[in-house]
């Protein structure tokens, strides 16, 4: 299992190398995205979220997932497309990531999605390399584009999108970083 997650984690090193396999597709702000199924732990309904103050907008807060406290990230906000509106079908997809800093310990992160669609098999010939622009999100977040039912599905790069290191650095307010300078 670890080995598998590792391989997906290493993907960003090589460009557009989204592998064929099973993907979970979901809708976010009218766009369809997909995540490799191996990284996904479970899908739960949105609710009981505790906000954490002094964090950037894309960190919505934390939830209690059977006793462990899991941070929840708003992907739309992370992509710079504004905060997700909570609706009836809003769900949280719990994704397993490998912390890219030291020990490489595994860490669960929840992402808010408008609606979860289905699990699909995507074959290699369906996958196109990501365009360098035009998707409206950072190119390094994308592993590839897959054609499904006449429209494109964006295959996300979990390692980059949910990089704990990058996100926690973003959450440093200027004042905090000042303090870090002398501390």
């Amino acid at each position, binding site marked *: 299992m670890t080995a598998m997650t590792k391989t997906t984690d290493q993907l960003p090193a090589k460009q557009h190398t989204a592998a064929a396999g099973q993907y979970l597709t979901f809708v976010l702000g009218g766009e369809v995205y997909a995540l490799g199924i191996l990284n996904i732990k479970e899908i739960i309904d949105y609710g*009981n979220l*505790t*906000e*954490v*103050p*002094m*964090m950037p907008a894309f*960190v919505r*807060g*934390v*939830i*209690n997932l*059977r*006793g*462990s*406290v*899991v*941070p929840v990230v708003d992907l739309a906000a992370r992509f710079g497309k504004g905060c997700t509106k909570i609706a009836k079908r809003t769900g949280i997809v719990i994704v397993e990531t490998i*912390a890219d*800093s030291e020990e490489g310990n595994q*860490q669960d*992160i929840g992402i808010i999605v408008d609606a979860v669609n289905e699990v699909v098999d995507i074959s290699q010939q369906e996958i196109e390399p990501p365009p360098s622009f035009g998707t409206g999100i950072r190119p390094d977040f994308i592993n590839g584009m897959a054609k499904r039912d006449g429209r494109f599905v964006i295959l996300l790069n979990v390692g980059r999108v949910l990089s*704990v*290191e990058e*996100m*926690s*650095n973003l*959450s*440093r307010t200027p*004042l*905090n970083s000042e*303090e*870090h300078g002398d501390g």
Partner: protein
Amino acid sequence: MSFDEEMREALQTFIIESLELLQDMEECLLSLEDGDDPTERVNAIFRAAHTIKGSSGLFGLDHIVSFTHVVESVLDALRDGKLGISPELVAALLPCCDHIALLIRNVVDGQLDADPAISAAGRELIDELQQFLQPGSVAEKAVTVSEKQDILEASGGGTMDSGNWHLSLRFGPDSLRDGMDPLSFIRYLSTLGSIAQLTTIAENMPIADQMDPETCYLGFEINFKSGAGKEEIEGVFEFVRETSTIRILPMDSEIDEFISLIKELPEDESFLGQLLVKSGALTKRELEDALNLQGEGDTEDGGQAAKSKQPIGEILVEQQVVQQPIVSAALDKQKQIKDNKARENQSIRVDAERLDILIDLIGELVISSAGVNLRALETRETGLLETTGEMMRLVEEVRDSALQLRMVPIGTTFSRFQRVVRDVSKELGKDIELIISGGDTEVDKSVVEKIGDPLMHLVRNSMDHGIETADLRRQRSKPARGSLRLNAYHASGSIVIEVSDDGGGLNRDRILEKAVERGLVQHNAVMSDQDVYALIFEPGFSTAQQVSNLSGRGVGMDVVKRNVTALRGRIEVESQIGMGTTMRIHLPLTLAIIDGFMVGVGKSTFVIPLDQILECVALPEDTGDREYVDLRGEVLPLIRLRPLFEIDCEPPRRENIVVVEYAGNKAGFIVDQLLGEFQTVIKPLSKLFAHIKGVAGSTILGSGKVALILDVPSLLEYVGSKNALVPPSLSQHSAQ
């Protein structure tokens, strides 16, 4: 499990055990000089060294074996009284302990062979040790160092090539008739080794006319030298075994060998006979015979039953199959095994991680039972309430006993300081005695792990700055020997650790002077003793006129304070000039669960550690936008959690102030509701939140929602640095 894995696990056990043994060894060494009867401790040290040597041999760590061997030799001489206990010897042995520990740590790092640099250091230590071994009248047995031959020469008497087995053969009278020629056996025997000496026993030979030429009357006493084992030699006489008496005994010089063999046996057999067979002093057949004999004795005695059963050891000696000393050694070993077994039953070594998982699970259980209780209260069903009440009580008990599992006595941490005090006092040229009390006070393992460093700072500080030199002490009519005390006890749900010295005490005036000089306090500030003493924990604060390599640079005490605070503890200083200083560290018993106080702001719930809360008061309605209130004549700066945490909703009509105190700084948090006390199971927050200030962690409420635990110190610091809401020298305010 593959062999490799097994070995790795075994190696792990070896490392842990060895390090523990080394610690014991060090403790014993340190107490050698002052104790009344050192025998037991010398034995303990010897045993420790011996075990380490034995187990390292098992793993093929030859460099450890060879080094430990020399240490062991010295200890052996000490044990036999050939060497006296002297401070020099202890001083020479202590670094050896360290060296062995170093070697073992290198093994941990995967370095299984000797490192040239380290072995050079090892050789120096060995040379030093040799000096203790050499001057003794004769090197004798103490130098069991290199070859076995030496021992033989030393104890076996002269250069005569003596054998190592004594064979006593009495051939049965029918041997010749059965076609067994005694001489052929002896000839065959000589293929196994060399017969050093042979005496024919012909006492049974009758006078000529009564002699039957077909009967064998002969017996032989043979001094036999061979590398073969007893079993093998016995095999030679296989065919005459039934009719003849065959005794195979090790020579006296070899008895020691067997005794040491017995001592080195792995501790898995607890039968005397088995032990002897394992060591090779007894063959299986001999044991069987002896057991049969024992059985016979039993049936003969009939009614007297088991009570009169002759011990196997006695039988063996009577039958002359083994000598008394060997049996005694085996008996000792047997006893040791039993003792160890008994000890094993008392404690089980458990992986700390497993315990952590258990504690985590129990934390969840506490949370979910709180949830159940909440629901039960809503139903107002008496039966349900009763059962949940009972369950809550049980869960609390389970939680307490689970937390108990992680408790370890602080004594092990304390005893480490024996060595520190010894070394540092030598370095400083002071005579300082360490008195330890309350070592069996128990505290959470995680606390013990983290308290070592702060304690080290305090101890060094006391020794360097607290305790005066012997001359000065005499002038002040104090005993020349300074004393440092480490004490621990439980007080109201926390553990208190005291480091006290009978030195010069803190000089209040000098501290104040220094503080004014550094601009920490105003010139004419009136401060309580406590406040003044607290200044020594300020970063970079030092009143020492001399900077030694131990302390005096002013780093250290602030680190102590920071470490203690990180453990949610606090330090108190009590000092009397000329009489000494006592540093008192108060620490929570556990880090996993705290007493919290819940407050509500808007829809959010926060938990504030209860021990940092002084009181709760209603916010005066006329406060308006002011950032301070008048709390019984004292200025209390306010921190509004609502804007700080960007909680946007209208504040209620009545708000409350939670007055918190940290390091003498008081502040008031403005919150909406006070929700009461709450047993808080701390859940770490994700790394994602590593940079946020003011939040120490999270917990899960009975409702299943997550609540954030406020980090009072960092919140105060954050707000203070943000808009200087909290004056930096608050302590003056409180004192004025």
